[in-house]
């Protein structure tokens, strides 16, 4: 199986339950929105999927690799865009991309070829020589998405990547993210904004540490708008 499978995942911070028996399965090439209000457990789930935390209970399988048993193989097929920007602001776009390629053991001509490809794909080739600090919010995000595509991940996690962006940049990044699954990449897109989810998207609603709904967005909200439905079930 080439997608992402999470089963019976639970996690606690001391007494507080952050995730309670969370499970879902995404096929190769699925685009899935993970919608949840602040504090629903999205970031904890992402920290577990990226092995920054280790789950007390449950299994995570990334592109056929068990994260617990074979973490390195699982992480090699995973791409992550964190909520907070992780660019080195004093380095140029190109230097940031080179650094990340090296973290995945990619070097030399192969690295340069991949960098050219992702810069073109995210339409930021003309910014390659600029320092990350001088980029606007939208371009910083595009750089991060370009970076995460460098090692051809099979599963992509994006943790609220539109936070802090203006409406136009938000729309552009959301559109880009949807197109990422076209080539067979599995995409999990965490957000708390219902308008970033298309009716045909796979949707998981996370609330109070549990999966509240799992299906296609249009089926989950029925005749109601997703915004209204989301507000109703989470307040």
């Amino acid at each position: 199986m080439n997608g992402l499978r999470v089963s019976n995942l639970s996690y606690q911070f001391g007494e507080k339950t952050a995730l309670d028996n969370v499970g879902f399965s995404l096929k190769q090439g699925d685009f899935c929105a993970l919608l949840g209000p602040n504090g629903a457990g999205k970031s904890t789930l992402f920290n577990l999927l990226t092995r920054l935390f280790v789950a007390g209970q449950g299994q995570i399988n990334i592109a056929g690799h068990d994260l617990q048993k074979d973490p390195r193989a699982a992480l090699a097929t995973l791409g992550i865009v964190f909520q907070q920007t992780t660019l080195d602001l004093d380095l140029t776009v190109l230097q940031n991309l080179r650094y990340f390629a090296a973290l995945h053991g990619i070097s030399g001509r192969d690295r340069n070829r991949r960098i050219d490809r992702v810069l073109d794909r995210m339409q930021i080739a003309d910014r390659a020589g600029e320092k990350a600090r001088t980029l606007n919010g939208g371009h910083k995000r595009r750089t991060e998405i370009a970076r995460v595509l460098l090692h051809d991940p099979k599963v992509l996690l994006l943790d609220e990547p539109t936070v802090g962006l203006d409406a136009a940049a938000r729309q552009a990044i959301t559109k880009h993210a949807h197109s990422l699954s076209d080539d067979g990449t599995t995409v999990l897109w965490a957000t708390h904004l219902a308008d970033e989810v298309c009716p045909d998207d796979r949707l998981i609603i996370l609330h109070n540490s549990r999966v509240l709904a799992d299906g296609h967005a249009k089926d989950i909200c029925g005749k109601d708008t997703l915004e209204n439905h989301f507000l109703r079930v989470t307040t």
Partner: protein
Amino acid sequence: MKPYLTVLVAIITREALRFVHQRERFIAALVRPLVWLLVFAAGFRAALGLSIIAPYKTYITYETYIVPGLCGMIMLFNGMQSSLSLVYDREMGSMKLLLTSPLPRWWLLICKLLGATAISILQVYAFLIIAALFGIKMPVAGYVAVFPALLVAGVMLGALGLLLSSFIKQLENFAGVMNFVIFPMFFMSSALYPLWKMAESSEILYTICAINPFTHAIELIRFALYLQFNGMALLWTVLAGVVFTTAALWGYNPARSGIRRKG
């Protein structure tokens, strides 16, 4: 093996680029020991009589005595500085990027350690050159012989920084490191005074100084600068380095950090 080297080169390059971008840090790192060397030592040379002790073969000036201690001081501050930057990296998120690389976590952290040590060594050589310009010179071959000693001392102090960074949750807590790590380590060592002087004042302090791994790091550097080998100093420094590195790797274990940190 190639991915391991690729990531090592990338991490050292990143540390070097960051260092170049922070010119103030470089200047501060040089000014601090130079003030000690040119002001403090000048005032103290009359007060502190030094007898002939190994590795010196003759009477030496106080300035000459404290040069190895100040090399150690540069490395100690740098080790703590890199620890500070690790805490900063964690708050800024770039640590997450590093830790989600598919290469083994221990290797990534060792690369960080070697990167910080490389910067330390660069600073020490800059300091030694300036000291030589002021007339405080070592045997020429000593400048080469000291390199491996600096490497071992730098890794040990960098590992201490790495260990501290795994336990410090916020930048604000870092001031405590100054008071509880840097100052005691520096003053309870052979950096500023030979240990026999300390023994004359207090047996307990002497014992603490003799155990302090920083003392051994300095003695390793001091002997190497005069083309002599101090096996005991090497043993203690390496031992401390291994203990600090092992504890730091444990500190960065995801199963443990998950329990302690939210975010």
